[in-house]
């Protein structure tokens, strides 16, 4: 006979405001097999956990149902408490009274009834729970960091400095990311490259870091501590060992008019190129789409001029497999591109540019060597307009969220413009100025008060070109929405920060969740900001949401600590929620008939054939066997098994049918 304890939590008032917790506990107390039932204000608090522990000891409980929040929140907490009191942790189940009941229904009898049902389901289930022991798995103490922007760089260095190996892959020819494109950074106006490039070099030289640029994740298998990643190293058409980075090839390449990605299309590059002078590694790649040789079959000038014979036209992509124990994703973000703002003529008028393009204009390493010159004719704009929220906070364009970084970089842009163009006039159209951050508000005030940037509260309706000027039609909402028309020479759109192209595919390769905007989802919005729902995979930087540099760096260090924590253990324990094939002593052995449908359906190749032999060594039966190290517990095999010979611990047939029956057969 089971002796089950039911512990109903009020969660302050989160549950008790709509659910009659006392009634739930009282009703549950009358169920068969329930030896103890109680309600308490905060079950997860120390006294609450002690309540459970002492009940286990004093009443000799064989099972525990905690009726509180989502098991995704506190299942580990309560299972640990049970274990401490000597009860097998897998004899503890949780009924989700908060997220699935009290928070989503109005106060009333129906809500309390539902709560009672939810408790009853789990009381019945727990009767069929079995004591399980955790599985131990080894840890490969190498981390894979995906993305070599500031977040990926920081995470790599932090992990490497704890003494663990790091493999850093970057899709572009150089690490550095968006930060390497920036001119100066807010709120200190220190030069972005000056603070970034030493870090880039450190990455390249660190003995614990292996860097692969021009490389992308091809696929991923395995689980925490034991991932197997396939990495595609795209062909650089170059023997990197021979290349000295002299750069002769890039000066001689005849295809010189390719828009430079690094300069956001404002400058040109050659087909064999190093994206920027400070690139790491400082060795070129051939962009095959634009290379004359790959298009027309002849040219090979780079090969002719290369003093070390490093060019390899026939080099192919390489797929390499690495084993890693943890992964940090730091793939960053991108900005919205043309066609998204037809009313602003973006893509149509060359002098309507993005904030990132403005960074290149303002950067000393940029196409204008840091002079603000408009793309169309190279003139210095006498009047410049900055538009905040170009795409952000615009549900009609599919982006309801605030991109967060724009208010600050617009203030910086306007300030840089005022510093560089004396007598120039700058205007900022904004809706709200969101300058939360250390020294941020002060920075914006400086732009307005000291540098004379004109802030106008209102959104611009449209921009059109007339007699060489860009006519900006706005309104001043602080002056009875009075129309404001500015004849500008250049317009900068603070385009929304959006998820990278391909973010969805990457998430699917990694089996992590993403939000509706394709930003990767953290495991908990407050308490697990760098974890994902997949154990062993962590997030850093703007791949999770638009972030500025300090936040990206902080997040990267956070992720690095998580990885280091993981690598501080030689073995990990895993939940024993895995499949098992039933098996008994001879002469029955198992009901498995050896059809092996399970083998064909298992996504983890965790099932193999096992031959049962008699004493004489003759095979008497061929049946399925689950490798507990590989099984991830999805249960696909269970639904496939024709003889119900395979079952999944924690979600057994008995348990699931019991839940259904308990739910509908009211007491």
């Amino acid at each position, binding site marked *: 006979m089971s002796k089950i304890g039911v512990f109903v939590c009020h969660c302050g008032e989160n549950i008790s405001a709509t659910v009659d917790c006392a009634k739930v506990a009282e009703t549950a107390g009358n169920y068969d097999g329930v030896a103890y039932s109680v309600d308490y204000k905060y079950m997860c608090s120390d006294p609450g956990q002690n309540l459970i522990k002492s009940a286990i000891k004093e009443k000799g409980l064989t099972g525990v149902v905690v009726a509180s929040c989502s098991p*995704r929140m506190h299942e580990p907490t309560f299972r640990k408490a049970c274990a401490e009191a000597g009860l097998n942790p897998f004899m503890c189940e949780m009924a989700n009274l908060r997220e699935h009941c009290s928070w*989503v229904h109005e106060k009333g009898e*129906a809500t309390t009834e539902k709560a009672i049902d*939810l408790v009853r389901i789990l009381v019945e289930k727990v009767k069929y729970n079995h004591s399980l022991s955790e599985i131990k798995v080894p840890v490969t103490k190498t981390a894979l960091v995906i993305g070599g922007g500031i977040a990926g760089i920081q995470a790599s260095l932090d992990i490497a400095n704890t003494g663990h190996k790091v493999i850093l892959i970057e899709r572009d020819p150089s690490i550095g990311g968006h930060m390497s494109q920036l001119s100066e950074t807010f709120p200190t106006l220190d030069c972005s490259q000056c603070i970034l490039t030493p870090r880039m070099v450190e990455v390249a030289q660190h003995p614990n870091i292996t860097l692969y640029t021009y490389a992308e994740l091809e696929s991923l298998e395995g689980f925490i501590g034991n991932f197997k990643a396939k990495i595609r190293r795209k062909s650089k058409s170059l023997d990197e060992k021979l290349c000295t980075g002299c750069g002769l090839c890039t000066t001689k390449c005849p295809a010189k008019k390719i828009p430079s990605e690094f300069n956001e299309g404002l400058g040109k590059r050659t087909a064999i190129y190093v994206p920027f002078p400070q690139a790491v590694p400082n060795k070129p790649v051939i962009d095959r789409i634009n290379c004359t040789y790959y298009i027309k079959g002849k040219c090979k000038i780079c090969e002719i001029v290369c003093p070390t014979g490093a060019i390899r036209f026939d080099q192919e992509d390489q797929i390499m497999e690495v084993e890693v124990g943890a992964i940090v994703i730091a793939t960053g973000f991108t900005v919205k591109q043309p066609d998204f703002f037809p009313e602003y003529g973006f893509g149509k008028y060359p002098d309507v540019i993005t904030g990132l393009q403005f960074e290149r204009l303002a950067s000393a390493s940029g196409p204008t060597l840091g002079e603000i010159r408009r793309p169309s004719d190279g003139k210095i704009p006498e009047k410049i307009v900055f538009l905040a929220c170009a795409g952000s906070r615009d549900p009609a364009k599919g982006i309801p969220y605030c991109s967060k970084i724009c208010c600050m970089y617009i203030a910086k842009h306007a300030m840089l413009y005022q510093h560089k163009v004396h007598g120039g006039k700058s205007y900022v159209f904004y809706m709200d100025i969101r300058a939360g951050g250390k020294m941020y508000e002060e920075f914006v005030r400086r732009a307005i008060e000291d540098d004379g940037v004109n802030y106008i509260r209102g959104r611009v309706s449209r921009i059109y070109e007339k007699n060489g000027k860009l006519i900006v039609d706005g309104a001043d909402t602080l002056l009875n929405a009075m129309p404001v028309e500015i004849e500008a020479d250049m317009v900068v759109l603070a385009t929304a920060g959006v998820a990278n192209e391909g973010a969805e595919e990457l998430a699917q390769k990694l089996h992590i*969740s993403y939000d509706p905007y394709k930003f990767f989802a953290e495991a908990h919005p407050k308490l697990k900001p760098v974890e994902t729902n997949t154990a062993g995979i962590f997030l850093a930087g703007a791949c999770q949401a638009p972030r500025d540099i300090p936040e990206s760096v902080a997040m990267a260090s956070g992720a690095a600590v998580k990885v280091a924590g993981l690598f501080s253990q030689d073995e990990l324990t895993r939940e024993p929620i895995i499949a098992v094939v039933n098996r008994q002593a001879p002469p029955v052995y198992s009901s498995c008939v050896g059809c092996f449908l399970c083998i064909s359906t298992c996504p*983890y190749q965790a099932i193999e054939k096992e031959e049962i032999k008699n004493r004489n060594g003759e095979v008497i039966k061929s049946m399925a066997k689950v490798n507990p190290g590989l099984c991830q517990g*999805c249960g696909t095999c269970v*639904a496939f098994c024709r003889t119900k010979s395979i079952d999944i611990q924690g979600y057994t047939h008995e348990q699931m049918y019991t839940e*259904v029956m308990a739910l509908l057969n009211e007491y």
Partner: protein
Amino acid sequence: MAEFEPKIVAFVCNWCTYAGADLTGTSRIKYASNVRIIRFPCTGRIDYMLLLKAFDEGADGIIVSGCHPNDCHYTSGNFHARRRWIMFRSLCDFTGIDTERIKFSWVSAAEGAKWADIVNATVASVRELGPYTEYKKVAKYPEKEVSHG
């Protein structure tokens, strides 16, 4: 007279829909209280005999929901569930089980509002259909009164 309150059982996966329903909660979006969620590791685990068992036990409607295609935590469980559902549905149609009472859907961990919408829509449509007393006939049980509180 009180409106008919259908009993809806939801079979959901742990990673997407269960988490999505958690998000409905953290977002405080209200929905009909007729639904009871049963958690599975993956929709691929859901043995469809469980659906028949639920009807057998007196459920009026069923929701099966997991991760969107390609988003399965276990790569392909939801594809198996979908394929199985196609087979199962035609079997139900053949045997006379009312498939309008089964709602098959995808709700991701980020779609809290969608979960509320699906529950509300299912409750409304099953309420329209009325109590599922027919099932007993289809399953050839001796007819008996099924009570609906």
